């Protein structure tokens, strides 16, 4: 398991954080996601053998946001 932080600059409210955290249920290999509108960040803990950064960024983009690794 690995933990990474992504910057999500275009979150507009706490509901956005909720939307991003819903990736927990749809992305295979994710253990936990904690998104914060206050910090415009998303901390994701995942199994690197099943998931990579590009897949995470793509999944975030599908939700309507841009993601950059910090």
């Amino acid at each position, binding site marked *: 398991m690995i933990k990474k932080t992504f910057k999500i600059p275009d979150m*507009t*409210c706490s509901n956005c954080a909720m*939307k991003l955290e819903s990736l927990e249920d749809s992305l295979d290999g994710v253990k936990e996601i904690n998104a*914060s509108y*206050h910090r415009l960040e998303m901390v994701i803990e995942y199994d690197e053998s099943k998931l990579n950064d590009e897949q995470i960024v793509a999944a975030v983009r599908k939700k*309507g946001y841009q993601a950059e690794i910090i």
Partner: protein
Amino acid sequence: MQKQKNKPIDPVVIVMLGVVFVAIAVAMIAFQPNSNSINIAAGAGTLSQLLVAFVTGITTGGLSCLAVQGGLLASSLAHQIEQDYVEHAAKNKKVKTAPRSNSALPIALFLLAKLVAYTLLGALLGWLGSYLTLSPLTRAFLMIAIGIFMIGNALRMFNVHPIFRYFSIEPPKFITRYIRRTAKGTDTATPIFLGLLTVFIPCGVTQAMMATALGTGSIAMGAALMFAFTLGTSPVFFIIAYLTTELGSRLEKFFMRFVAVLVLILGFVTLDGGLNLMGSPFSLQNLTLRLTAQGAARNWFPSESIASAQTDSSQPSADGSITLQVQNSGYFPTTLKAPADKDFTLNLVTNQTYSCARDFVIPALNFYELLPDTGTVQVNIPAQKAGSTLFFTCSMGMYTGQIVFE
């Protein structure tokens, strides 16, 4: 091949249901029994308080709440729409027509459950408030805090500075996670359950209304206030649910700007009300009062109508008492003149007055009384120095006036 556009929600159904909600609300307010029938610890003005709550709901509340709870409703609807589409495709493999969605029912159930939940929450807050005696000063601080909170939220929506993001309250993770997972259900109970759960993720305006419900100190009034407010938010939820699913994020952004402007205005109004309730000479209304009174005295405003409406028309009577008319639309005259260094009696006269003007407060004297709807209450005003001013207001900080000592 003709491209089929998926119409997930019938706008006619949405608008019609919205109109029904508004009609129910208007009927509820129009046939409100005499305000005396509801015991409101915080005072009078049942009708105006409910009306303000409803209007707040239909304007700022609905739009603001949607920013927090809309995703929940949309995700629930999306699932319903998706299911409708799959069922439709299975039944009509050859005929390429757009599916009829059953979205109106889950929306109605969601909003009905939300209405029930917030009414119960209002009753609970009113009950809690009955154990807390909120003095006018405490309420003033509460209103100022709410006003600052709303202004901060509006500035956050305008993205003025990152610091304003902290004005948005993030619900605990375990609650959002639980709600999110529940949102995946498909049965009828799911939208009901989700509607009930919205009490855990209230928006800024709802939180402000919750504080007001707490301030009523009455189970009935707390429940009625939250009911009126939530009912007001319902038509907006219906309409925006359609807009967000049908017209996309561009219009949503426009609406969020609109919300920000309204929240900003309401924030300043609440802040000003709080300052009035504190008896601050720096509230917008008290500044205006002072300017118009000075202007009339110096003939800055020669118009007879302004002068007669705003300044002293009641001189002390033979026994030295001064009369203030407490009417549904405020206090008349708004500026009283009284002799300095001398006690006097202020007669507060009401005549079928049911607005919050009845809930009379003189902050500097820590005087607070709920006046009868018709009658006269005498207040002894202690001697004040020449040139000083005593401000008076209603308990909501809406109607104000002043006594100038000379």
